[in-house]
Structures are given as structure tokens and as C-alpha cells.
């Protein structure tokens, strides 16, 4: 009898341990790459509609900077950008849907911050786009520094971090301003367009989109000054390092390609290059792609199908797009910006 009871206790203990182990195992997903490959597509959480970043047309074709990044990941894995499947997500549901494995990656203009990374058990592999708060004003004012905005009437969306940053910036620089608060972004624009404010403040990427809604877009400019940090990054689940590495190095491959002058147009020429940095990028030297769990030509696939970082920037938000946002901070580190990728070696 005693031995039976003892056996039962041990059995129960084992069962509890196994269950605990299973729960722990379930909690941390380490198989994203495997599942993605079996499924044959990358599930990508994107914004439902944000010009330049993620925008579907009436036929359901997606365009944008965030969308193209997903296509780059799909290209690296499948050699086929159409293997990226887009899942439109609200701001409020985006992190939960990633945690619940409804998507493999979030590429949805999400600001990287400490609390999001630590509290949500998520990971932001690298900054894809350096955004930050700026100011739009009429060109005719002939102001080229935010420090000249003392005494301005400023249009701003109410109850946002934008309004708080505005207050901080003016206080820090001993300037005064009159706040003109509005509930919706469209009302902010209308008020500014009708001349109720001297300047409008929002994230710089937003300002260029809002400028297109003005009656005379070309009469307005956006100052070069950025007063806050909004680093936009893709997001993945923690503790799936193999997957995180693929997402991170997809972005770094695109940035390195631009730095080395490798584009979607000269990729064939690049494959014949004898320059060691180029050879490591395109896989004619080393086994960097295989070490990542992919193929030797992983970066070639990205560049061929989607382009290097500069090409993706120009096409979606830069000179060749409607928004025409100058490269600014998103220019490469050796050309005036802060965009910097560790080397492939």
C-alpha cells in the first residue's frame, strides 16, 4: 500500500513536471522559420493604410516601405517576394496578434521603446526608419530652424506624446508658444491650412503625408530639425533567435548593399565582383547565408527582388514617391545620416 502511494506521488510529480515543461515550451516559440517554410509564406502584420509605409490599392496590391521589408524577408527565404502575406492590424491589437502567433513578424510603423520590448516579451531587431517629431510651416516665413519658432501658434493633435514633446522642446529652449489643440489629425491640418496656426507639429513622416492634403502643398516646408526619437522597427517574438537573426540581417543586407553600391540593377555585375565586401554580401565568398539557415545567395535574392535600402526608401517615401521625404537621418552613416549596419564578415 505504501509503495503504491509512493508510486502515485512520484507519478503525479512527473506529470506535473512534464506539464510545466510543456507549458514553458509552448510559451516560447522557437520554430517560426520552420513553420514559415512549411506554410510556404511569411505572415506579416502591417498597417491598414498609411501612405508610403503600408497601403493597399482597390485590387488589394500592397505598396510601401514596411510592406517591402516583408517582401525582402520572403525573398531571402523563398526567392519570391510574393510569398509575403499581409495581415492588416490595428495599433491596439498589433502586439497581441504577434504574441499569439497570428503573424510571424510585425512590420507596422512601430516605435521601438524599452517597455514594449521588455513588458511584451517582444524584440525589435534593428531600426528600419528613424522617424521623429518635426515642424511644417509656410515657406514664405523664411525660417529654417525650429529655434526661430518662439511665440508661434502651434497646431497639434490633443492628448498625444506629440503635444508633450512640443511642451518639453519649447520649455527647454526658453521659448513660448500658443497651443492649438484638435482631436483628429484631419482637423489639425484644416486648422493649419486655413491659417489658424503658424506651424503644425507631428512626426516627420506624417508631416509629409499631411502636406499633400493642403490646398497648396508646395507653399509649405518641413524643417530639418527633429525634436524626438521615434525609431520605427520590425518586431518579432523573443527567444526565437534563428528567426530574429533572419529579420535583423535582412535589413542589414539591404543597408550594406546600398553602402557597397549594389542595386537591383547591377546585381549581376556584383556577382562577378572581386571586392571582398561585395563577395561576402552576394555569397561568392563565405557561407553567411547557410549559417543563417538560408542559402548562399540570400542577400542577392533580397536585392534582386526588392532592392537595397536606398532603392526601397526612394521608391516608397523618398524622391521617387509622392511623399518626397529627404533621406535625413535615414541616409547612410557615411553620407550625412545615422543608418548603419554591422558588416557581413
Amino acid at each position, binding site marked *: 500500500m505504501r509503495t503504491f502511494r509512493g508510486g502515485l506521488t512520484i507519478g503525479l510529480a512527473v506529470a506535473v513536471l512534464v506539464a510545466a515543461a510543456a507549458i514553458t515550451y509552448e510559451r516560447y516559440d522557437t520554430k517560426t522559420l520552420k513553420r514559415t517554410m512549411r506554410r510556404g509564406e511569411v505572415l506579416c502584420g502591417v498597417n491598414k493604410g498609411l501612405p508610403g509605409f503600408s497601403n493597399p490599392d482597390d485590387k488589394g496590391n500592397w505598396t510601401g516601405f514596411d510592406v517591402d521589408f516583408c517582401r525582402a524577408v520572403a525573398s531571402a527565404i523563398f526567392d519570391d517576394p510574393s510569398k509575403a502575406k499581409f495581415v492588416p492590424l490595428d495599433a491596439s491589437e498589433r502586439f497581441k496578434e504577434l504574441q499569439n502567433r497570428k503573424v510571424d513578424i510585425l512590420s507596422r510603423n512601430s516605435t521601438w521603446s524599452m517597455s514594449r520590448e521588455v513588458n511584451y516579451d517582444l524584440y525589435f531587431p534593428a531600426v528600419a526608419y528613424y522617424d521623429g517629431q518635426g515642424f511644417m510651416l509656410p515657406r514664405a516665413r523664411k525660417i529654417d530652424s525650429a529655434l526661430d519658432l518662439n511665440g508661434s501658434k502651434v497646431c497639434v493633435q490633443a492628448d498625444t506624446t506629440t503635444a508633450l514633446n512640443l511642451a518639453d522642446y519649447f520649455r527647454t529652449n526658453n521659448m513660448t508658444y500658443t497651443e492649438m489643440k484638435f482631436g483628429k489629425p484631419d482637423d489639425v491640418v484644416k486648422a493649419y491650412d486655413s491659417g489658424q496656426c503658424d506651424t503644425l507639429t507631428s512626426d516627420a513622416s506624417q508631416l509629409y503625408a499631411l502636406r499633400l492634403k493642403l490646398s497648396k502643398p508646395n507653399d509649405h516646408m518641413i524643417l530639418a530639425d*527633429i525634436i524626438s526619437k521615434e525609431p520605427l522597427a520590425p518586431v518579432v517574438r523573443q527567444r526565437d533567435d534563428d528567426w530574429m537573426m533572419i529579420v535583423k540581417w535582412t535589413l542589414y543586407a539591404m543597408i550594406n548593399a546600398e553602402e*557597397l553600391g549594389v542595386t537591383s540593377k*547591377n546585381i549581376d555585375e556584383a556577382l562577378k565582383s572581386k571586392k571582398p565586401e561585395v563577395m561576402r554580401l552576394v555569397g561568392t565568398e563565405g557561407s553567411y547565408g547557410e549559417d543563417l539557415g538560408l542559402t548562399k545567395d540570400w542577400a542577392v535574392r533580397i536585392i534582386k527582388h526588392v532592392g537595397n535600402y536606398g532603392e526601397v526608401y526612394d521608391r516608397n517615401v523618398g524622391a521617387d514617391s509622392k511623399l518626397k521625404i*529627404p533621406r*535625413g537621418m535615414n541616409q547612410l552613416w557615411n*553620407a550625412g545620416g*545615422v543608418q548603419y549596419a554591422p558588416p557581413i564578415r
Partner: protein
Amino acid sequence: MTNFRQMIWMLIAAFGLALSSVQGHAQSRPDADEPGLIADDGYQLDPEWQKQVVYYRSNEAPGTIIVATAERHLYLVQGNGRALRYGIGVGREGFQWQGLVTITRKAEWPDWVPPPEMIARQPYLPRFMAGGPGNPLGARAMYLGTTVYRIHGTNRPDTIGTAVSSGCFRLVNNDVADLYNRVPVGTKVIIRQKPEL
């Protein structure tokens, strides 16, 4: 047999020549130098090529000029993370060199004496042209080191943002005059080319 082959090749060559001359006429002259043409002052540059203050992180001292040929931008470093950026036209050939030069001379409405190598390529160019609105060097010129290359104006504002010159860097006349007033002789000019594969 050989004769037949030669004939085929000659035919191909003739066809190619005909095709290239047609293209040459279809586009404007490949060099985009049109001596005598008066610049259209009302020409509206694409936003990308308009003069503007931009974010620009640099270790170079304020007042330094950085020419980013691949971008078709000329930066005048302002310090404090900013630069004044102008749109430029760059060389399709010639100035492939990169590094540091200084402005050795400045001239208003410069005369144009196309260098011999340019005459050799484009014999139809004048040997000398007095400065003025129809002059391809435009309103101002800043001479770079001891080279034959310059930062200058243009009578062809539509060529800003392209690679058509014989190696010089061209700005629209308003911009080159603006730059001219901001930089003295002795200004450092850093030329950057796109990386080679």
C-alpha cells in the same frame, strides 16, 4: 564566304550607326551644352533638387562643400547637424576622381573656353564664348584646384539631377549665385563618388 561575312558585319554596323544617330537626335545633345540658349528663370525644379536646409551629420567644419555625385546633391556644411543642400548635375565622364580640392578662383558670368579634350569630342562647340545669360557656365563659376573642372551655373536648368556634363558640377543660376556668396576662395571641397563594385 569571307566577303559575305564582311558584308553582313558592315550592314550591322551601318544599321547600328543609323540607330545611334536617330537616338542622338531624339534626345537633345548628349552633353546637354547648348551655347546661346537663355536659361528659363521660371523653371521649377523638382523638390528633390530645390535648395533646402537638411539634416546632415558631418565631421567636416562648417563652410565645407561636400559633393555627393551619386545623389546629385551638393552640401554646404552648416554645423550642428545641418547642411544647405543644392541639386546638381554631374559628369557623365571625366571627373571620376574623389577626395579633397579647394576653390582656387571665383568668377561672375565667366567666359567659356572649352578645354581641348572637350573640343575633340564635340567639335561643334565654340572655341570661346563671352560670359552672359546664354553661356553654359551660367551666372557664376568656382574653379576646383588646378583641374579643368568647376562648380558653375547653367543655361539648362532641366539637366539638374542628371549625369550629362563633361565632369563639372552645375547648379541653377539662382543657386550658384547663392552658393558663390557663401563660400570664399580657399573653401574645402570634398568630392564623393559612388562605390565601385
